[in-house]
Every structure is written in C-alpha cells, then in structure tokens.
C-alpha cells in the first residue's frame, strides 16, 4: 500500500503514512483525481525533514467518505515532474511548495508566487515584482485594480487584459494580507492563543476555521466531543452561513444598483449576527468555539430567542427573494454572467458553494460529515449553469436549508454533558480536519513533534482554490460585470494569504 486511508477528524501516527519515491507518489495521487471527479485534493503540503522536504498529499473521496494520505521525501536540488501537468487542481499547491521550499518543477505551466510569505525560499523576490502575464497588442489594454480597493474590503491586485470593454484575461495577485499564521501556530504554545489565532484566520469565517482547529486539536488529543459541543458548533456553522449568504445577497444587489434588495438583505443580516452577540457576546462569533469544551452553552432561553429571530427573518427573506428573482433588470445582470463550467470547476478543484453552482456536488456536510451533520442527512444544493444567477440561487436556497436545519435542531436541545478534561496532543501524530464553512471546504492539517507540540500546521481556506474560478468566470465578460462576479463568490483574501 502506498497510502493510508483515514476519515475526517482522525489522527494517525506520522510513521504510518507510507513514504514512496516521488514518481510513485505522483502516479498515485494524480491517478486518484484523474480516475474520478468524486475525488479532489484537500491538502498537499511539505515540511522540512532532515536534508529534504517531506511532501504529504491528502486526497478526499466524496463517495467512499475516505481520505487517502501518502507522502514522499524529496531533495530540492533537482527538478521534479509536476502533478499539475497531470491535473490542474494541484497547480496552486505546487506553486506554494516552490515558494516555500524552492522545489522546482520541470513542467509546471504557471510557476508564479502565491503569497510572498515571510519565510519564503527566495527573499529577494518582493510583492512589487510580481511577473504579470501580458500580451503584446495594439488592440488590447490593461487595467490594474488594487491592492487597495474602492470599497471597504481587503487588499489584492487584479490585472485585467481587455479587448475594448471585454475581459480577455484576469490575473489575481494576492499575498498582501500575509500575517505568517501557519508559523505562529507552531510558535505559540498555549491553547488559548492557538484558538484565538484560528478564529482570526478569516474573520468572516470565524466559526468555520475555529471549528476546524478545535476538531483537529481534539482528535490529536484523543478527546471525544459530547453532543452539546457538537450541537453548538453545528448551530454556529449554519448561523454563519445564513448571515453571510444574506449579506452577500445584499452586496450583489448593491453591485447591480438595486437599492431595495441591498437595504433589505443588508438589514436582514443584522438580527442573525445580533443573535450571535446574544449567544456569545460577539457579532462575528469570535470567542465562541474552543477545543474540548462548550464555552457558551446553547440554552433553552437562547433557543426561544433564535426561534423568534428565525420566525421574523424568514417571511421577509422569502418576500424579498420572490421580488428579486422575478425582477427582469436583476435577472438580466445575473443570467449567463460570469460562467464557470463544470469542467473548469472540476479541473481547478473548486470547492464549496462556487463548485455547487457549477454542478459539482462538493459538500463536506455530506461527503465527510462531522458534528451533527450525519443526522441532518444533508443534501447539497446544486445548480448547473455556473453563472452569477446559479451562485445567487445557491445562496438563497442554502439559507432556506440552514433555517430548516436550525429549526430541526431546536426541537431537541441536549443538556450539558459532564466536563471531560482535554489532554495535550499525542506525540508524532498526523491529523486532518475538514469543515464545510459557508464558502466551502476548510481543511486544517497538523503534524505533532516528539513532545506533542505542533510541528507543522497547514491551513487551507476554500478561497485557495476558488480565486482561480473567479479569474475564469470573468473571461469574455464586460469589465463592468466584474463587481457582481466578484461578489457572487465573495472570496477571502486573508484566508488565502494566511
């Protein structure tokens, strides 16, 4: 066996991950994803081991609910054949390996920096020197946007090559938000600091990332979560989904200058995030999720409040949607705008709601369920067209779905279980945790050292894959449609840059 099969939130001794020579490692993993569209790479990372770099590749199989983990030890002095030449979904992972460790590839088509990480291999290269793709032509012009944008959003640079008003090509350069998070995970020791770090990876996905961290830490420590802990996490994840999807519907309306939709969806988000504040004291749920405990138990009183909030939210949300989805001026901006085909989505390894809008049924809640998702019997919302309309529809329907899940969960509130003590993580373990955040699949991986402390920590936000989907979506669209394409994805800069 050249690989080990694990499940979501499972820890195994690092020594049990089979190590193959690079050629066999490549064949194995490229073969996995080539064989079936149900498989995709959830994480592929490296860490320094002796004089070489140990590569670890994790392929998730959505049908069998398994994750295949394999590894290889390589030297950085010779060029390797790339995974990317076999399947595009490895593209960014290999660029990251190149940037961090200086591994070079003989046939990688797009070897460019990912985020100009502080501890990158080549410090001589700075973010101002990014090698943009350009085309020599008298007909074409370039438009540069960013890093600082016109709105109150995060920084990133977009370089468009346009033919008249039409976008021929978009290159997205990121890295401005790099805070050195993965390194801080290894350097910081107290659990309180690590948990705080996890919820600050991407503030709009505070629940998603902190649940991933908590689950990872618990499986490394051999901790079994009680039902009330899983319950609180499931509720928080679904509330986060409702809040952001609603907010993004507002943003999409803003970008098509539809004032009513913008205001109504905008204000509908408020009671949801204010409920989070009632529950845990923070509108973005920071401070709520901690490993090994239920910091703010979900009480009967809170359940009553949430029912009230949902009862008032739902009719207004439905009413506004009915109006929006029948409005010709809105639909003409949504339909056939920013199309990502199912083929492209699968090629680039797109995940989450963006993948589902393009016909790929990728959803961790179904394929690798955790917390209380197994009993919710989740069926992903999947659309076929891959345009802004599909992504807006996915958001709308996922809000309905989440509201229904919350109502179901509210029927039976578990009591607080007896407190178990959380041990420290075991020695020399590898573990992986997948969580379906509102954007999509969040993957955290960790390797512990001989003293049980974190030796490697790898974070992957869904945006890591999906930025490429945005770049593909805008091709052959009017440049004026860029804002709605962008908002229909609403990707994370900080989650990508780490």
């Amino acid at each position, binding site marked *: 066996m050249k690989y080990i099969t694990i499940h979501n939130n499972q820890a195994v001794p690092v020594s049990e991950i089979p190590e193959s020579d690079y050629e066999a490692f490549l064949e194995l993993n490229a073969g996995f994803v080539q064989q079936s569209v149900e498989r995709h790479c959830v994480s592929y990372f490296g860490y320094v081991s002796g004089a070489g770099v140990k590569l670890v590749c994790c392929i998730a199989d959505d049908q069998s609910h398994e994750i295949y983990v394999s590894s290889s030890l390589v030297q950085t002095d010779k060029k390797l054949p790339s995974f990317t030449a076999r399947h595009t979904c490895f593209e960014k992972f290999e660029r990251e390996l190149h940037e961090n460790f200086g591994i070079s590839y003989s046939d990688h088509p797009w070897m460019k920096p990912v985020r100009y990480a502080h501890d990158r291999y080549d410090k001589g290269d700075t973010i101002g020197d990014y090698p943009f793709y350009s085309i020599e032509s008298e007909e074409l012009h370039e438009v540069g946007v960013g890093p*600082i944008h016109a*709105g109150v959003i995060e920084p990133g640079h977009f370089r468009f090559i346009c033919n008249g008003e039409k976008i021929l090509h978009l290159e997205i350069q990121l890295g401005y938000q790099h805070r050195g998070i993965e390194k801080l995970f290894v350097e910081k020791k107290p659990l309180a600091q690590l948990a*705080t770090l996890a919820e*600050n990876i991407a503030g709009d996905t505070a629940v998603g990332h902190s649940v991933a961290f908590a689950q990872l830490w618990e499986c490394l420590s051999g901790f079994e979560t009680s039902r009330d802990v899983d319950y609180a996490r499931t509720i928080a994840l679904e509330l986060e989904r409702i809040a952001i999807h609603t907010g993004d519907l507002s943003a999409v309306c803003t970008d098509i200058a539809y004032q009513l939709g913008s205001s109504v969806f905008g204000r509908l988000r408020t009671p949801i995030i204010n409920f989070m504040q009632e529950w845990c*004291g923070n509108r973005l749920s920071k401070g709520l999720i901690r490993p090994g405990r239920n910091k703010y138990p979900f009480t009967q009183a809170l359940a009553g409040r949430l029912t009230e909030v949902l009862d008032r939210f739902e009719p207004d949300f439905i009413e506004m949607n009915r109006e929006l989805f029948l409005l010709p001026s809105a639909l003409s901006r949504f339909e056939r705008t920013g199309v990502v085909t199912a083929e492209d989505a699968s090629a680039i390894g797109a995940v989450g709601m963006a993948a589902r809008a393009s016909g790929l049924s990728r959803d961790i809640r179904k394929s690798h369920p955790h917390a209380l998702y197994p009993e919710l019997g989740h069926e992903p919302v999947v659309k076929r067209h891959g345009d802004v309309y599909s992504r807006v529809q996915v958001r709308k329907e996922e809000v309905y779905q989440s509201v229904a899940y919350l109502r179901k969960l509210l029927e039976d509130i578990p009591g607080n279980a007896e407190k178990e003590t959380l041990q420290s993580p075991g020695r020399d373990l590898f573990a992986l945790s997948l969580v379906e955040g509102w954007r999509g699949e969040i993957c955290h991986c960790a390797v512990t050292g001989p003293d049980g402390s974190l030796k490697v920590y790898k974070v992957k936000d869904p945006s890591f894959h999906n930025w490429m989907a945005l770049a593909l979506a805008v091709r052959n669209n009017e440049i004026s449609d860029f804002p709605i394409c962008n908002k229909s994805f609403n990707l994370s800069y900080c989650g990508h840059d780490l």
Partner: protein
Amino acid sequence: MLNNLKILFHQGKQYIPDVTTAKVPGIFRGRPVISPEPADGQRLADVCPTGAISVNPVCIDLGKCTFCGECALMFPEKIRFTTDYKISVTERDQLVVKEGADQPLVIDPDKVRKEIRKIFGHSLKFRQVSAGGDNSCEWELNACGNVNFDMGRFGIEFVASPRHADGIVITGPITENMAEPLQICYDAVPAPKIIILAGTDAISGGIFAGSPALDRRFIEKYPIDLFVPGNPVHPLSFINGVLSLMGRKPPVKPQ
C-alpha cells in the same frame, strides 16, 4: 411597485434613532470593570491569549484585548465586561483599564488636534485601508453605513479614493506586504489628515503581535488621532468615537 412598497412597509423601522444611547443586545463585551477582589494575579494574566492583562494592580489593555471574555468566565468576581461600547480614545494609555476604575472612557477636547474640530467638524470622509485585517473589522465598518447604523446621516462616510478623504482608517496588524501600499495611500490624502486605528489588530497587532511578517513602522511614524478597540470593532464604538473626535453631539430625532 405595490410589491416594493409592501416590502418596504414590512421592514418596519430599522434605524437606530440615537446612536449615543442605543442599547446593544445580549452579552456584548465592552468596557471591562475590574473589582478590587483579590485574585491569583499570575493565573489571571495567563488566561489572556494576547497578554492584555497585567498584574499589581490588575489592568486590562483594551488595545491588546480580543474581548474573548475568557478572563471574565474564569474570574467572574474579578472581571466583568459592561455593555458600554463607547471605548474609543485619543491617547493610547487611556486604553489601559485599571483595577477599581469604573468611569466611562472619554475624549478630552484639549487632546484633539485643533484642526480636526475646526475643519472636519461637520463632515468627515475616510479612506479605509485593510492592512492584514481579517475582514471582521472591515465588515463592521461597512455595517456602520447600513440602514441600521446609518453613519452617513452625520456626514461621516467611507470614500473610494484617498484624494477625496480627510483621513484613513486602518484595520489589521499591518503586514510587511501592505506597508508600502498603506504609505502610498496615506501620502495621497490631502493634509491635514486624520489616522484612526480600528480594532485590536491595528492598535497592537493583537494575536499577531510579534509576527515577523508584520511591519508596523507606519504607526510609530505618525500621531494617531483615534483608537477604536474591538475584535472586531462594534459599529457603535466606531460611530461614537468619531462623533466625539469631531466634537459633535448627534441630533436626536423624535421617536
């Protein structure tokens, strides 16, 4: 048309009539109060993920605090967070809340640069720069302009270009990769100009303090006009902070 009016009607009244006295729902953690109760100082300090708690006497630095509430959960007798969201100040050391202190944090008009009130007393436009921010403070700053908080009614707005701005609002711990764009943006704002640090990450680096991937020299170089703590900042903290900086009392609309 009728449908639109119906939808409008169904929303009811959403705006907060008086942002200076509005109550926040739930267990919002604003300005803490530290009681003189004896407590194991070292254990208390160790609870804090960002080293915001110092001992002898016990103090909480709101510029470092992530408002996670861990200290108040572990030492409920010692530390209590009030729902007072008016925590914006003009001096960095005002953010250190001392044991026994239970007064609101106020902005001393004499400590505000003269030109701010003279020139910007009625309208204030900001350029927002996220320099490693995690999109939570950015989110809340956007919320300041929504139909609930409606900061625009005071003439305070975020604008698209530094050329149109009277100052910048910085979020995030300031990454090495954003240091130069931040400087360029600041230079493009016409003088006199204001700098506001919004959020714990911007004020002290927060949980990222000490990361080598940051470059915080910008903050040491220029005087900071307003510190707005929070993780993320609450819209009411921001709006009230800016209003006091401008020396304005918002007109109270009849209910």
